[in-house]
C-alpha cells in the first residue's frame, strides 16, 4: 500500500425505517403524496450519507394493510442505491402485524448485522386509520425490543381518522406524533422527518453541552415542535384538498 492509498474509514450505519399504512383508505391523494415525498427525499438522504464520515444512511420499508410486507426483504439498502417504487393502497390496517415484522428484523440476526455497528435507527410510521388487528400484542412485543427502545420514533397521523392515541403508544409520546390535513403539509412533514431524524440519529451524540445532555429522541422532538409551529402558519393555507 502506498502512503496515499486508503480504504474508506469504517462508519456506523443508520437505518431509516419507513413504516407505511397502505390500507384502502390511503388510496388517492394520500398514498400519492407519500410516494412522491419519499421519492423526492431520497436524493437528500443520499447527499447526507455521501460526505458523512460518521455514518452511512440506509433505508428499509415496511408496508402494512392486510398483513405487513417488507419492500426491502433483503435488508436495508444504501440511500445511494435505493430506488423508490410507488406503492398502492388497498385492504385493512394490520398495524399489529407490522409491529411483529419490525420486531423480527430489529435484531443483529435480522437487519442490524453491520460489521462496523449501527447507530440506533430512526423509525417513521405513517397511518391514516385505526388498527384493524390485535395491535396490542404486536406493539407490546416490539416495545421490549432493545433497538426499538433506543430508536428515534416519530409518526405522522394523516387526517382526523388516524388514531393518534395508538400512534402515540407506538412512538412513546404524543409529542412525537404530528397530524396533517393536506397533501402539501404531508409532503413537507415526510421530508422534514426523514432528513432531520436521519441527521440527528446518524450524528454522534451531542455531549458536553452546557445546557444539559439531551438524548437524540428528545433533541428530535424539540426540532419537531419547532417545525410544527413554523408549518402551522402556512400549513392550512392553500395546501390543496383537505382530509377530514
Amino acid at each position, binding site marked *: *500500500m*502506498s*502512503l*496515499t*492509498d*486508503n*480504504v*474508506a*474509514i*469504517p*462508519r*456506523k450505519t443508520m437505518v431509516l425505517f419507513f413504516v407505511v399504512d397502505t390500507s384502502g383508505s390511503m388510496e388517492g391523494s394520500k398514498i400519492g403524496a407519500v410516494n412522491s415525498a419519499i421519492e423526492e427525499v431520497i436524493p437528500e438522504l443520499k*447527499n447526507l450519507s455521501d*460526505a*458523512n*464520515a*460518521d455514518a452511512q444512511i440506509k433505508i428499509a420499508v415496511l408496508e402494512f394493510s392486510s398483513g405487513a410486507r417488507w419492500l426491502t426483504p433483503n435488508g436495508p439498502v444504501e440511500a445511494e442505491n435505493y430506488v423508490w417504487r410507488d406503492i398502492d393502497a388497498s385492504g385493512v390496517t394490520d398495524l399489529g402485524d407490522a409491529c411483529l415484522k419490525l420486531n423480527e428484523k430489529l435484531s*443483529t440476526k435480522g437487519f*442490524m*448485522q*453491520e*460489521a*462496523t*455497528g*449501527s*447507530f*440506533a435507527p430512526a423509525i417513521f410510521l405513517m397511518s391514516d386509520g385505526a388498527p384493524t388487528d390485535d395491535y396490542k400484542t404486536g406493539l407490546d412485543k416490539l416495545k421490549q425490543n*432493545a*433497538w426499538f427502545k*433506543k430508536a428515534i420514533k416519530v409518526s405522522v397521523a394523516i387526517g382526523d381518522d388516524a388514531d393518534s392515541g395508538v400512534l402515540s403508544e407506538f412512538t412513546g409520546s404524543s409529542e412525537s406524533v404530528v397530524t396533517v390535513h393536506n397533501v402539501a403539509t404531508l409532503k413537507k412533514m415526510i421530508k*422534514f422527518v426523514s432528513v432531520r431524524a436521519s*441527521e440527528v440519529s446518524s*450524528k*454522534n*451524540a*451531542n*455531549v*458536553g*453541552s*452546557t*445546557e444539559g*445532555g439531551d*438524548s*437524540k429522541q428528545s433533541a428530535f422532538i*424539540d*426540532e419537531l415542535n*419547532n*417545525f410544527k409551529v*413554523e408549518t402551522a402558519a402556512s400549513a392550512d393555507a392553500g395546501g390543496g384538498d383537505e382530509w377530514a
Partner: protein
Amino acid sequence: MSELQSGRVIKTQSGKDVKVLDKLGEGGQGIVYKVDYGGKQMALKWYFRHKLKNPGKFYENIKNNIAHGRPTEAFLWPEDITEWVDNTFGYIMPLRPREYGDFSKYLLAKEKFKNGRTLVNAALNIVDGFTALHRAGFNYQDLNDGNFFVNFDTGDVLICDNDNVMGHGHNSGIAGKPRYMAPEIVRGEKTPDKQTDRYSLAVVLFLLLFVNHPLEGRATNPACMTEEHEKKYYGTEPIFIFDPDNTSNSPIRGIHQNAMVKWPIFPQYIREAFVNAFSNEQLHGKNPRILDSDWLKLLIRLRGEIIACGCGREIFIDPTQPVTCRNCGKQIAIPAHLRVKKFNVPVYPTVKLFSCHTVDCNDDFKTPTAEVIVSKNNPGSMGIRNLSDTTWYVSGADGKSVPKGRDEVVKVASGLKIDFGDNLVAEIIGN
C-alpha cells in the same frame, strides 16, 4: 425550515445587499448558500431558526470575529453579518475555491492526496491554522471533519465553520461531536480551551495520517452505538488503539485496515508522539498536551524524510541509514545527508529545504530555500541549489569560504559546511 428562496435579498450590517443564488449544502445548524454580495460571489451561512441556544450571544460573537479579522488567509472567516430576518440571521464568508475538497470525503476514500509530501503538507497546514487561531486569542468550540477543505494536489487547507470560534474563556454552549472532543469535555468536566483544542488537533492529525479514529478499535465496536457507549468510548474509558500498555482496543483486521497497514510504516518518532498524545494520562486530562510547535517540528522532519524510489513508491527513510525500498526491495543510493538544526535531510533528488531549515528561529515550512538537483552530465553527482536571496558561504577541508548566491549550486561532497547566515551552519555528511 427557514430556507431561503433564490433571488431573495437580505441586508447586511454593513449596509450591503446579499442576493441568494444557490443552495450549497446543509449542516446541523443551518444552510450554506452561494450569494451575490455587492457584485462578488460569496457564501452565506444561514441559521435554522430555534437551532441556536443563545442566538443573541452567537450573533454578537460573530460580529466580534468579523471586527477582529481572520487569523490567516487559510480561514474562510466571517466578513459580514445580515440583519435579523424572521428571528434568524446569517453571515458572509468567502466561497470555497473549486480546487478544494471535503476532508470527510478523504476519510471515505473518495479523495486522495497526490503524494506523501502533499499529505504531510496538509498536516502542517492544519497545525499552522491552529497556531494562528490560538495566537489570535481564539479557540475552537466544535471542531470536526466538516471544518476542513483540502487541496489534495498541494496539501493546502482552508478552515471553515468559524462561527463557533470564540475568544479564550468564552463558551458557545455548542455541543460538539464526541469523536473530536477532548475526553474531559465529553465527561462534562471542562469547557473548550487551548488544551482541549490540542487534543482535537491530535485526533485530526491521526485521522489524516492513519485514516482511522485513534479510539476506535475492537473494544469500541458494539452492534448498536448508543449515547452511553459514545460517552464511555470518547469520555470515561477511552483507550488508544495502539496503546503499548493496553491492547484491549487494538484495531480489527478488515475494519480498521488503514491504521493496521500504516502504523508500522511511519517512523518511530511519529508513533511515539501519538502514543503520548493518546496515553492514558493524556486521555484523563493530564496537561500540558503536545504543543503546536512540537507537531510542526515532527511533521517538518517527516516531510523531509519522504523520498520516491525509482520504482515509483514513496517511502519514509532514515537519512543516516542505508535504505531498502519496501516495494521493490532494491537498495536506494542516498549519497549523503545534510545536518542542520535538529534535522537530517537526505541529499536526494526533488528534496527541498525551507526557511524552517535554513533560517534561524524560523518555522516557515512553506517557503522553499534550496533544492537537491542531479547533474545533467553526471547522474551520480548531486548539487544543492540556493533558491533564497541570502548568500551562503560554503567551506571545505581547505578552509576556503566560497559564496553561493541565488540559483547557484553547491556540489555535494562529504564534509562540506554551508553557512546559511546568522551562524546557522549545516554540514554535509556522506552516508
